[in-house]
């Protein structure tokens, strides 16, 4: 069997294992799904009237604010789902079965690739679910073409892939599930200091560059542009660049940790 088909076959086997875990024990995935849904409802129904006052249009009310925060909430959903990846990788690495995998003639990266693909699929499913909730409470895209929908979907998937590799690296570096959950926390907190809930120019001047160039903001702005027709500008390639850099870093970090002798 060639190296590539070996890699694909073993990774597919590992993916099936991870999806089986997720299906048998869905509580982790569902808990993580709760956070973005709660935040969506909280910001729309509790803070919505006040928050919308700060938008560029000004005072356009709750429905305008729904449109504003949904792109950020969708990306936050990904940030939340990948915490699950960090936790399940850390848990998995403490199991004896991983030692068995290491002593088998299988593709070395397949264990991690299985986790990553599984987590990306979960992220996409979560985004669809949260998106459905958003539509149910009144989110509508303004004249997005099929191509723009496809691009939005592609960006979300790429973003999920990047964050998942980082989360898997965090999971590999953590001695246990609790530590993994803690170290992956920034992935769900970062959206709070992005343009997800408030425009960047409403933030303190010294903070604006941080908020503007962190990975979430370009991705949020690009998604907004695709779904709502706002200006994308340089955010498009910035978002893609962030995704590629994070994915590459996370991949190198994770595989290097996996290659190291287990303790």
């Amino acid at each position, binding site marked *: *069997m060639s190296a590539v088909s070996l890699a694909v*076959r*073993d990774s597919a*086997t590992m993916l*099936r*294992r991870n999806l*089986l*875990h997720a299906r*048998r*024990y869905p509580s982790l995935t569902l808990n993580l799904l709760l956070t973005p849904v709660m935040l969506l409802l909280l910001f729309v129904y509790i803070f919505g009237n006040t928050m919308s006052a700060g938008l560029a249009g000004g005072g356009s009310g709750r429905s305008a604010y729904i449109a504003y925060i949904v792109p950020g909430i969708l990306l936050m959903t990904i940030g939340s789902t990948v915490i699950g990846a960090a936790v399940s990788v850390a848990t998995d690495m403490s*199991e*004896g*079965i991983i*030692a*068995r*995998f*290491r*002593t*088998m*003639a*299988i593709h070395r990266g397949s264990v991690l690739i299985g986790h990553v693909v599984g987590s990306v699929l979960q992220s996409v499913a979560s985004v669809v679910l949260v998106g459905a909730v958003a539509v149910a409470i009144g989110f509508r895209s303004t004249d997005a073409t099929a191509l723009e929908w496809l691009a939005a979907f592609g960006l979300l998937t790429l973003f999920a892939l990047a964050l998942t590799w980082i989360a898997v690296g965090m999971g590999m570096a953590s001695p246990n599930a609790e530590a993994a959950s803690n170290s992956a926390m920034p992935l769900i907190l970062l959206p709070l200091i992005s343009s997800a809930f408030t425009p960047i120019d409403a933030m303190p001047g010294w903070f604006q560059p941080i908020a503007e160039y962190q990975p979430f903001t370009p991705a949020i702005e690009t998604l907004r542009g695709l779904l709502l027709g706002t200006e994308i500008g340089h955010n498009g390639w910035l978002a893609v660049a962030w995704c590629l850099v994070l994915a590459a870093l996370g991949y190198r970090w994770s595989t290097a940790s996996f290659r190291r*002798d*287990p303790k």
Partner: protein
Amino acid sequence: MTGLAIAAHGLRKAYGDKTVLDGIDLSVPEGTVFSLLGPNGAGKTTTVNILSTLISPGPGSGEIRVGGHDLAADPQAVRAAIGVTGQFSAVDGLITGEENMLLMADLHHLSRRDGRRVTAELLERFDLVEAAGKPASTYSGGMRRRLDIAMTLVGSPRIIFLDEPTTGLDPRARHNMWQIIRELVTDGITVLLTTQYLEEADELADRIAVLSNGRIAAEGSADELKRIVPGGHVRLRFTDPAVYQAAATALRDVTRADEALALQLPSDGSQRELRAILDRLDDAGIEADELTVHTPDLDDVFFALTGKPGVPTQTDKSKETAR
């Protein structure tokens, strides 16, 4: 078959200042059971982990060949030849026993039909049919260990590493496991077994290496090892007190047990020493009613070689019983 399944030279491993393996040599012929015997912390698991490619050998280690493949140059070929059942159960507790088996079949690239057949056969052989549909986390220690070995066998490995396969098992499960290991050997599989139970090494192993502080303190068959340690003796029993007295005078260096009319002579049990004793008895025209040779058991060997303090040696024990 005359080849070596495992050949390792100067195996070394250190963690920081702590030397775990200090240059050990192993050669295990194909189709035999080789046991690494030693207390906790002697380096047994580290040895298994290195030979099974789980961790890398320390700098300064010599050549290591497993299943004929160079461990450093071609670890994947080594992995394809071996199966490992580690000290901590290597099963996926979240999925069922059957799913664990099918997972192994997939990773060994068996076709779906072969995978199902092998899974069914092994579940049957290891008495896991009833539990096959339950999550492995609900299994008892013995069941989990059986599932563990069954998973190891899915890929038909030629060499199997068993790291303390019976630790923590109850006596019945332990004997069950011994039976399983014996069956593996009749199939021509080479087994490298680590244990801290001398009885287990004695029962199962063709050759035993006693590991102590990262070195091999002694190596040989169980009988050879027992002969290394002084403290064996020959016991002569008589029914006639007069003959007993005569024998006691005729033989030197005896420990007397007057009540039992028994004499004990220190001896390694070798043919030469036995003949010397018998010759002296013959010269004096004495015939003993019973002659038994007591070789030290592996416990004595173990403690003598690994230098555990506070444990009486065989000679101490003999004196006590003679008193």
